[in-house]
């Protein structure tokens, strides 16, 4: 443990030690920082250097919960947070399942999530990386402009302590580069993006990020609006990761116990095609969101949610597990010191197949390769299952990628889409998201256009 982590843990311990009789207290203390460099036309447009710290305190008494936070570790503010949380207890409703997590004996899976090279990485090298990415993107195609090219890194450390005996801390850092591209042809402009992530900058593949940014923008030039019809779609890995993000809210234990999940009564039943195996595995260090601990300080662990198409389990925090009569799966998530833990998947992954995207496409007569989707937040309802999203991409005709199309939507329901999965590609891509990307073929989706 480092000196500053010791300090955070000591602060959390100190708050918890103030618990009175019949009072449960949880203190979550965190500190973090980030750097962001944005390059535009070869110059630094902005350089952001940010540090923040704060504390969140949860108090439970007689089945009632109160919470307070402050974005500072100033001793006066910390005392005030505890007092506010205690005061807030009176206004909660008695909940027989209210309570904090308790140590469950599951060992932490040790991972190397802190990188000293990144921690000491000099500022001028960060700027140089973003400039290099801009140069490579511009060099990839003469029709391409760069909207912005960015380097970003972040570090965070957190300690949690509870009166129920949890006492854990963690520390991690990571970095990524992104580039937003524009491609012009006369009056028409299309956009693309590329990125690369790593535990340290050496892991970046700038050439690939630049190439993808240029290709994504240029291949949409000349796109038209296709006639509406049902067809087979191939989701690009980045789109699949977003799709899995939507699926994750249907397996979250809190939605299940509150009757809001469309799979709430379906445990043990077939909910997806047999080739679908969906795993949440934050112990896999390849995942960008890999972590040793969940938001309540329990060990993060590997959970198989859908196995060969059959729904095997939901993910739980200690609260949703208590209500469901089961044990926490180590899936409490918390956005930081300012919130209480919710429930969610930490690092989702579809079990990959073996074939490349090109091989998947070769077997499709009439289809759509979906390069990007927009409006997942507005057109998808995880409670009803309705799925409708704006999309752009390329038509697939006779097994080959053909004309670009845009201003269209694809629609189905989440229930149907899982059952209509035809194949999972072998092209796993670890993205800066809570789910890994992989090409995914789904049949019988409605494409709405002209």
């Amino acid at each position, binding site marked *: 443990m480092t000196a500053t982590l010791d300090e955070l843990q000591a602060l959390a311990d100190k708050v918890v030690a103030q618990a009175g009789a019949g009072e449960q207290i949880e203190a979550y203390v965190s500190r973090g920082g980030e750097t962001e460099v944005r390059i*535009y036309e070869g*110059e*630094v*447009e*902005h*350089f*952001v*250097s*940010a*540090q*923040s710290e*704060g504390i969140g305190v*949860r108090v439970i008494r007689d089945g009632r*919960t109160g*919470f*307070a*936070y*402050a*974005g*500072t570790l100033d001793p006066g503010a910390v005392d005030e947070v505890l007092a506010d*949380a205690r*005061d*807030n207890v009176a*206004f*909660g*409703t008695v*909940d027989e399942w209210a309570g904090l997590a308790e140590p469950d004996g599951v060992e932490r899976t040790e991972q190397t999530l802190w990188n000293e090279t990144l921690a000491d990485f000099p500022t001028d090298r960060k700027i140089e990386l973003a400039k290099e990415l801009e140069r490579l993107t511009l060099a990839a195609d003469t029709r391409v*402009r760069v*909207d912005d090219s960015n380097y970003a890194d972040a570090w965070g450390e957190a300690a949690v302590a509870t009166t129920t005996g949890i006492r854990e801390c963690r520390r991690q850092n990571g970095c990524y580069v992104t580039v937003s591209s*524009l491609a012009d042809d006369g009056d*028409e*402009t*299309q*956009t693309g993006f590329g990125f690369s992530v790593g535990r340290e900058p050496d892991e970046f593949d700038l050439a690939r990020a630049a190439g993808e940014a240029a290709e994504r923008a240029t291949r*949409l030039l000349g796109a038209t609006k296709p006639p*509406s019809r049902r067809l087979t779609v191939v989701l690009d890995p980045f789109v699949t990761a977003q799709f899995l993000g939507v699926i994750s809210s249907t397996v979250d234990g809190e939605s299940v116990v*509150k*009757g*809001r999940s*469309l799979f709430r009564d379906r445990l043990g039943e077939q909910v997806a095609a047999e080739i679908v195996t969906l795993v949440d595995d934050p112990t896999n260090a390849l995942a960008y969101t890999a972590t040793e601990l969940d938001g309540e300080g329990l060990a993060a662990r590997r959970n198989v949610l859908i196995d060969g198409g059959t729904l095997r389990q939901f993910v739980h925090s200690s609260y949703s597990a208590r209500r469901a009569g089961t044990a926490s799966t180590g899936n409490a998530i918390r956005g930081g010191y300012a919130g*209480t833990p919710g429930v969610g998947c930490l690092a989702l992954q579809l079990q990959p197949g073996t074939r490349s995207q090109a091989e998947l496409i070769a077997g499709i007569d009439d289809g759509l390769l979906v390069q990007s989707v*927009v*409006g997942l*937040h*507005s*057109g998808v*309802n995880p409670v*009803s299952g*309705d799925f*409708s*999203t*704006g999309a752009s991409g390329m038509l697939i005709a006779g097994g080959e990628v053909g004309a670009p199309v*845009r*201003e*269209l*939507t694809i*629609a189905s329901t989440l229930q149907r889409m899982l059952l209509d999965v035809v194949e999972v590609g072998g092209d796993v891509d670890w993205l800066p998201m809570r789910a890994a990307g992989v090409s995914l073929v789904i049949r019988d989706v*409605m494409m709405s*256009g*002209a």
Partner: protein
Amino acid sequence: MIDHDVLERVLATAMRSGGEFAEIYAEDKRSTSAGLDDGRVEQVTSGRDRGAGIRVVAGETTGFAHTSDLTERGLRAAAEAAAAAASRGDGVTRTVSLTHQSHDRRNDIAQYPDDVAKVDKVDLLRRVDESARSAGASIVQVSAGYGDSRKRVLIANSDGLLVDDEIVRCLLRVSAVADGDTGMQTGYQSMGHTIGFEVFTDVNVEELARDAARQAITKLDARPAPSGTMPVVIKQGTGGILFHEACGHGLEADLVGKGASVYRGKRGELVASPLVTVVDDGTMAGEWGTLTVDDEGHQTQRNVLIEDGVLSDYMWDFLRARKEGRPPSGNGRRQSYMHLPMVRMTNTFVLAGDDDPDEIVRATDHGVYVAKLGGGQVNTASGDFVFGMVEAYLIENGEITEPLREGNLIGNGPQALRDVDRLGNDFAMGGPGTCGKDGQGVPVGTGQPTLRVKALTIGGTAA
């Protein structure tokens, strides 16, 4: 929050490495929120966010750092970090002399939410829960959220500007789930204003809850939305998001300046149907996007963006306006002291037209009537945008008929603006929105009369 002479010294520190502009944005925000779900008040939360962001501009480069330490030592450290990133190395010592400006507040606050007992806030949630549940036997779940905040801000810059402001917000939202033979459906309503707790005596929160429940119940009988292109009529006060996405973002000067907007170089040109006048107005009393001064310290104002179809102006932040030698438009905003300001909308709306709203429906042979829109998203460079329809119906032979399941609509901004062919005389502002851009969310308002777009693509599953 911070002494006058400390501000001056910190700004001088920020300018020491040769920057030509420096700014301190400090905030101290206290908030209360409460959530009810599954019939229980889950918890009341008290929050305190306090800190300062300092930016230094040298040439085209902006350096930015923030700190939660508002002592002179903490502020100076942040100023040095920001200055190091935006350095010209000429090291000329400059002094800054601040002049305090005071502006009349846009909003009168009768009852500060921090003076209201928490039990009264929690009581709102119970009333909402009860009303939604009593709306029908098929309502199986209700969740509701209450939030208020009181934020003091202080903005000082090297031009000598010193402004302080206070922003009060109150928000209530409710969502309901109905369960039937065809599965579950959801409904949602919210209200939010930049005034005090008195807002809840003016608004019928029970009705808000019943409406959320009614949406969910109505949709139990919904059929799949059609797919393909057809006329869309949007009810007053629910579709301002259409213009927010179809043209609002594209009229932000930062995106225009980078050539990432379909509206670049179009000032003075006809870009919309002559029926359409789009305004962004940060001065409207009590609205969700209203501010006395923007987050760079400049007074908000009423900006006409499109007048009778002609693009009249873009929206500006201070730095970009300064570069162009024009006054700022009061659109420089940021999520918090931890964020850099950029060009953002405030309350964006379309002015009313002359048509009778019922007549607009009667004049539509076959199409979709959207009674409530959800969120949206736009690609400003291509102009393609989407928005969700949360409550929608078929229009058949000039009549509103069956309810439709949820889905997205998709269109292209400039084309959709040209395709606005009917405009109602029944203007209304909509619910509170959060606009996301470059990772920052800011509160915005939208509004519009009932209107018709003659062709949008409906993203349903029915043929």
